[in-house]
């Protein structure tokens, strides 16, 4: 950020805790989203076409989060450059009937869906729902950090082509629709995006530590390596390494730029946020 022609340096820039190679801070901090309008735009990562649901691409997105709320909140989402509403994919957290839930929604329009009915453990056309009471389910607002990973093999009709892992364990899966596709061009962390990047919300009122994108459908063992028993590792040392790797305050010295520490070079941008939204909290 430029202030009167001077490059702004984040106040944590000179701290040394949790440093890695090159003095870059790897851990200890996260972004606090306000649940009102805060978001991080990682559109360049989506525009690179890694994350398309086109019948061919395989990809994975991992996100570490902490959610203090019970309201429906989108952790991250994507949409295409098509003005029609309800063409989005998202991972969300919410409570209903006092039971915490993680939900994947994968839609190609208001009435068409990227996945078919019959999801495990529950769900319907276009969504997987995992309740805290399901095997490997989580209580999203239990005060702990959680890791949610979505793996996609977008082959049309692929059985179990879409899987959701929670804290390193397979918790939900479903089969792809035999015909529907979607080409995602916008990616937001902290809210749902749709209608050609013009409609936002619901927003996320919690904290995000990392978001990483892999060019490939990770195996269960590879997902478990990301979670690592709840102790995040430098994912760049994993095989495969992430194409895009956002660390939300850990090394982001040029706020509001959210640096991509992967090989993709697709920096994100914090929108409606201030440096004070970087907090000293991490898994």
């Amino acid at each position, binding site marked *: 950020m430029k202030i009167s022609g001077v490059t702004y340096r984040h106040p944590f820039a000179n701290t040394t805790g949790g440093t890695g190679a090159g003095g870059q801070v790897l851990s200890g901090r996260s972004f606090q989203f306000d649940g*009102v309008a805060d978001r991080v735009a990682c559109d360049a990562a989506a525009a690179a076409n890694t994350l398309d649901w086109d019948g061919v691409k395989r990809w994975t997105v991992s996100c570490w989060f902490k959610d203090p709320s019970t309201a429906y909140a989108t952790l991250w989402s994507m949409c295409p450059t098509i003005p029609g509403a309800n063409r989005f994919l998202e991972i969300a957290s919410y409570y209903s009937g006092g039971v915490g839930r993680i939900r994947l929604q994968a839609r190609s329009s208001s009435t068409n869906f990227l996945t078919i009915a019959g999801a495990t453990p529950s769900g319907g056309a276009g969504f997987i729902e995992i309740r805290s009471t399901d095997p490997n389910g989580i209580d999203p607002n239990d005060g702990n950090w959680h890791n949610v990973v979505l793996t996609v093999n977008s082959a049309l009709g692929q059985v179990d082509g879409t899987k959701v892992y929670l804290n390193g364990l397979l918790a939900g899966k479903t089969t792809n629709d035999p015909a529907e596709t979607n080409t995602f061009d916008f990616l937001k962390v902290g809210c749902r995006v749709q209608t050609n990047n013009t409609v936002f919300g619901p927003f996320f009122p919690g904290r995000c530590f990392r978001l990483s994108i892999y060019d490939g459908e990770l195996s269960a063992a590879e997902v478990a390596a990301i979670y690592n028993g709840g102790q995040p590792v430098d994912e760049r040392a994993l095989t495969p390494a992430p194409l895009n790797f956002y660390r939300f305050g850990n090394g982001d010295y040029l706020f509001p730029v959210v640096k991509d520490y992967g090989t993709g070079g697709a920096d994100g941008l914090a929108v409606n*946020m*201030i440096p004070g939204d970087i907090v000293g909290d991490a898994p």
Partner: protein
Amino acid sequence: MSETYYRVYPSDEVAPQMKSSACVSTSPRYNLDETEAILRFTEPVDGYITHTEAFELVQTPAWQEEPLQ
């Protein structure tokens, strides 16, 4: 999160308010009929609401569609 302040403005007042050095919002959130927007500030402004109040406000039907549609 740093303490910040929120205020709802009619749409025609949003652009001038965003010029305030205390205004954080660069991409304001509007209600569903786009008659009002909520802005975030680093300092108290007349008629401000707290973060808790702002979060509760944007959960209402005027500001957010039913997310499980």
